[in-house]
């Protein structure tokens, strides 16, 4: 067993090592984060002032669409899969993932999928322009057939990758735990990923089904989404959101897991209410299957439907509230220190809760008619996606980077990254609440004059946030290349868990003989 990795590029092409594959996922997702971020910069540059300045409206629509697709499927999801690859075997005392060769395949499907998606930018019809939700008939009747077909194939490929990745995670967690690691002793990150993996297996096929129906409508002469042939475009929205709502929990549950690891460490107290955290996560996952139509209150649903989806959605605030209170209770009377991972976690806690509250506002069906498709929605989901998922990802990288590399990041630089991210993020998205409530619709390349000031603030914030992510890249490279060496097993004095019992940097093979968990 004591062989090292192959040399050169073949190490990365052929690797079946969970740490290598985890690193591949993390670097790939960061590349996608920069690409999706570049699209966002174009959006914000165009919206810096009212009127048409830089790009034409078709290209603007391509940018909003590609920004959403790349960030959701290319950046956030693979980032958490990478984290799962790195951390889950080390947290449960397993030597590797259960299905290492499938692990390799599920990563290597991603680069071709996103190359194809990005390649649509250079086709005659341009990239998809129907928004990341690609509602029919915008994505079928009105789409360029070549673009739509490439896009559908890309979605199928990344879907296959996600399903394989999650099957692997389920098999690893169920079968590979060290002796004594019972379910209710698993770290919360492992728990949230187990539940997330089940969600993925259940809903990625629905996304595959939705795009397959699109493909058949475009090329096969069917009319799933075409009223002329007896179909219905609203059916698309139902199928999409049946996937799409669990998808947002797929993104946020692993983030909950990360925060539940970090807050106890820097509060020097065990997590408050561990089992209630597990049950809250599971109930959020179950509820996610029966709330999808709250994304489509305005399609003309029967009153009973509006009420059902409204109340079911509000119900999700209960387990989410349990989590937030547990995190706060963990910090209560703890000896808290404010290293960068903790700063990002605290920002997560505050900003995610704001995003949760605006979510409750949006869940009120009669009020939603005003908020629907406005910048208020944009502000809401960026508070949960960026301040939720991306902040927790930054926290995770700073938290485990010393374990991965055996080197310490620069704390002052990391704090600069944190504060620029925090200020930049809030400058960008907080004003969007106001312009949204005042009636600025999303996905337009221009806006009415009264929104000019807030949009300029928003754009400035976005540029600050964008630059601070370049700083993040610099910090990580500086750490990997020349950070101060640390060989301590426990980087953080308050850290608990099996991953902190192996040397730093974590050797290529860990737990070849399983540890015993008391």
């Amino acid at each position, binding site marked *: 067993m004591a062989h090292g990795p192959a040399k050169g590029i073949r190490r990365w092409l052929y690797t079946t090592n969970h740490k290598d594959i985890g690193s591949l996922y993390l670097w790939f997702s960061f590349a996608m984060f920069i690409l999706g971020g570049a699209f966002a910069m174009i959006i914000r540059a165009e919206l810096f002032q009212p009127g048409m300045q830089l790009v034409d409206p078709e290209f603007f629509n391509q940018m909003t669409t590609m920004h959403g697709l790349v960030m959701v499927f290319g950046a956030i999801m693979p980032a958490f899969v990478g984290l799962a690859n790195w951390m889950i075997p080390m947290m449960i005392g397993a030597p590797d993932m*259960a*299905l290492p060769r499938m692990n390799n395949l599920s990563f290597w499907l991603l680069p071709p999928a996103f190359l194809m998606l990005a390649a649509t930018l250079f086709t005659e019809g341009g990239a998809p322009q129907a928004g990341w939700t690609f509602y029919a008939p915008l994505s079928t*009747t009105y789409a360029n057939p070549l673009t739509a077909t490439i896009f559908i194939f890309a979605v199928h490929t990344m879907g296959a990758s996600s*399903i394989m990745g*999650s*099957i692997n995670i*389920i*098999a690893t967690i*169920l*079968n*590979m*735990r*060290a*002796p*004594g*690691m*019972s379910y209710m002793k698993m770290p919360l990150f492992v728990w949230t990923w187990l539940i997330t993996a089940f969600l993925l*297996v*259940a*809903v*990625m*096929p*629905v996304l*595959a*089904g*939705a795009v*397959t*129906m699109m493909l*058949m409508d475009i090329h*096969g*002469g*069917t*009319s*799933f989404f*075409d*009223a*002329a*042939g*007896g*179909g*219905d475009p*609203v*059916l698309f929205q*139902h*199928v999409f959101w*049946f996937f799409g709502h669990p998808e947002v929990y797929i993104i946020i549950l692993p983030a909950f897991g990360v925060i539940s690891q970090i807050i106890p460490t820097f509060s020097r107290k065990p997590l408050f209410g561990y089992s209630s955290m597990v049950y809250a996560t599971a109930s959020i996952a179950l509820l996610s299957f029966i709330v999808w139509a709250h994304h489509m209150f305005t399609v*003309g*649903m*029967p009153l009973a*439907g509006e009420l059902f989806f409204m109340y079911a959605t509000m119900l999700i605030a209960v387990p989410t509230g349990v989590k937030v209170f547990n995190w706060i209770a963990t910090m209560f009377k703890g000896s808290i220190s404010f290293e960068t991972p903790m700063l990002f976690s605290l920002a997560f806690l505050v900003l995610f809760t704001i995003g949760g509250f605006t979510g409750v506002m949006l869940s009120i069906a009669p009020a939603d008619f005003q908020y629907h498709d406005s910048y208020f929605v944009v502000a809401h989901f960026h508070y949960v996606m960026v301040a939720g998922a991306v902040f927790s990802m930054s926290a995770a990288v700073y938290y485990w980077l010393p374990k991965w590399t055996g080197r310490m990041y620069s704390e002052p630089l990391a704090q600069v990254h944190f504060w620029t991210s925090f200020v930049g993020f809030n400058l960008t998205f907080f004003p969007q609440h106001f312009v949204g409530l005042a009636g600025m619709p999303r996905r337009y390349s221009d806006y009415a004059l009264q929104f000019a000031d807030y949009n300029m603030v928003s754009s400035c914030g976005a540029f600050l946030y964008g630059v601070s992510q370049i700083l993040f890249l610099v910090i990580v490279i500086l750490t990997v290349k020349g950070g101060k060496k640390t060989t301590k097993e426990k980087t953080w004095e308050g850290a608990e868990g099996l991953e902190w019992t192996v040397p730093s940097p974590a050797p290529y093979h860990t737990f070849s003989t*399983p540890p015993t968990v008391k």
Partner: protein
Amino acid sequence: MSESTATTNNARSNANRRIVLGSVGVAVGMLIFCFFVLPPLYDALCDLTGLNAKIEESSYEAVPAAVDTSRTVKVQFLATNNESMPWQFGPALEQVRVHPGEQTTIEFVANNTTGNDMVAQAVPSVVPFKAVDYFHKMECFCFERQPLKAGESAKLPMVFTIDPELPKQIHTITLSYTLFDVTEMDAKASGGSFQWGKG
């Protein structure tokens, strides 16, 4: 699952196989669900609630016996061309007043003003939703596709009756038709390519 003794590799790979097969089963099951359960379920719910006027895709058979002359209901007709449909299309009369139970015939007029032979499909919709179950079409051009040669025009008859059970508070019913250009779709379907999943 994880006993205190180390699991042997063999047992572990069997356990892995079970999980993989089970998960793939769930994934395939969800795909089937998405194709063969969600669309029919959606149609069933639309029928149940009367949304989309997806009811009565074929003609209504029974003729109610009594005409309720104590009530008069206003029935309005609307015609819309979907996207770039170039035909002239509209009702001969924009509204009629009828008694519930009375059988009424009205006409729509369609004119293919283009130089090409085309096929159209009209899709009906009724508001208010609560009236949908009480508006019966005995004969409707919307039950079938309507071909018209270049320059040709046609009178399209529609026979309907309103159920005397129509809730008391409804005084006006609006019947709207949207006309779709299905020339290409019609050609594709008769060309023999696959055609399953009509909504």
